[in-house]
């Protein structure tokens, strides 16, 4: 069995892919966005509750997609809940670097972090979009005024 596949599909990815965390819709929510990958049909719908201190009080998602995209979304929600938007923006940049193979430039994510499990995507360029779909949706949710 190829090591690349084992890298890509680590235990934690398969776990989150099969049983995503924070699946559903925030009630109430004050920000939301849809992500859609027209090339493959994957979809994600994000809802967030952000307080006036710019802290993400709650974040949930629904959608359909492959294990990589579902796991990435599930891990994203876990890593963003309770964090500030400023931190989230930095994490977004870090995550993009991680999955596009620039992991030596990481500022926040360390090898011990759950998000680090998505590093293996770097060896599959066509799958990077699967991993970043929900992150881009998150960006558009918080950038929307």
């Amino acid at each position: 069995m190829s090591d690349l596949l084992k890298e890509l599909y680590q235990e934690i990815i398969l776990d989150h892919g099969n049983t995503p965390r924070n699946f559903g819709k925030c009630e109430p929510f004050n920000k939301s966005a849809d992500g859609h990958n027209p090339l493959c049909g994957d979809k994600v719908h994000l809802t967030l509750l952000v307080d006036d201190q710019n802290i993400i009080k709650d974040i949930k998602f629904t959608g359909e997609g492959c294990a990589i995209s579902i796991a990435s979304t599930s891990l994203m929600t876990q890593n963003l809940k309770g964090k500030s938007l400023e931190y989230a923006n930095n994490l977004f940049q870090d995550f993009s670097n991680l999955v596009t193979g620039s992991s030596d430039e990481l500022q926040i994510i360390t090898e011990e972090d759950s998000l680090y499990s998505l590093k293996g995507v770097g060896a599959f360029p066509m799958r990077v979009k699967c991993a970043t779909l929900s992150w881009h949706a998150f960006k558009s949710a918080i950038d929307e005024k």
Partner: protein
Amino acid sequence: MDQIELKENIQADFPALNKKILKNDLIYFDTAASAQKPSVVINELSDFYLNHYSNVSRGVHTLCVEATFKYEDARKKVQKFLNAYSENEIIFTKNATESINLIAQSYYQRYLKSGDEIILSVMEHHSNLLPWYFLRDNYGIVLKFINIDSDGNLNLDHFETLITKKTKLVAVTHLSNVFGTITDKKLIEISRANDLHILLDGCQSISHIKVDMQEIDCDFYAFSGHKIYGPSGIGVLYGKENLLDELPPFLGGGGMISEVTYDGATYAALPNKFEAGTPPLVEAHGLGVALDYVESIGMDKIEQYEKILTEYADQKMADLDFVINYSKSKNKTSIISFNLNKIHAHEVASFLDVEGIAVRAGHHCCQPLMKLLNVTATSRISFGIYNTKSEIDYFIDSLTKCKNFFGVK
């Protein structure tokens, strides 16, 4: 089952098939998206640029004569391959998508008015949907869609119920890029009996079954050269001469005119009327060479061989209880869409990629159809002349490995 020999050592004709994916030999099961190219085609492209290149039809010097000859010779080859009645019926475009857009726009201008109806099917490629959506959105043309039965065949009874006095044209696939279903000849009979014009999207049929325009008797037929072992960037529109003659031009520019003044222009005769600007001349020549190559093997033999491969894969896949096969028509060839139980098509495609097998995963440019099937994506294997039964055996083993890797029961 007998292993019929298509051509001795055929894989050696396709240099790209020597590629290794990680340590595995490449198995190319994505011909429906685009076919690999034989060396003869690759070499002829380079020979054209090295020894014969100039623009066409616009000069008297030797290179211009040679380039023009090669370009027009390609047209003759396409005419012969399709058994079209005349060379004037062969229009070069950049791909099937452009061919269909050309017909949609020109046909509308000549024949349609708001409220007129066009019939498509629910299993069309986006390339045979969007050009017609433009007519619906901009000019009030009504679109109707032929249903499919549970095996992925066009429901021709339903087709008949869609036809009204306002129906002018039916535009459907000749061979489904999702199911591999070959469109029943009866569709043509029904259309003729109701005075409809017929456009067939031949993107898939061109390389998998023998097509003869005079026998099929459609009015328009579109295909892309890259699907039949030719280069990218060249497409064909076939149209019956009397109809093409009546249609107004699509794009305007050099090469499509007869006379131009500051007040207006008159247009060139067929086929030039529809070929504005410098054409993909080298690619056209490459397509001609590809058709020669295919003919040297024989379309009859190819059709028979690929049907045997398809049946073989079908049977082997039927033995795997975790495989859902969506391509169920009895009248199909070369294309099988499937999913593995509870595993997303992306996972399957990435897994197979690492095994060396190139398959497609996604909606295959048929989003509405995927919705109808109630799936977000499928995986698809498709065969070309270079594929073999032993490749299918390896693929079947890999499917089982994939299932085990993802731990699905």
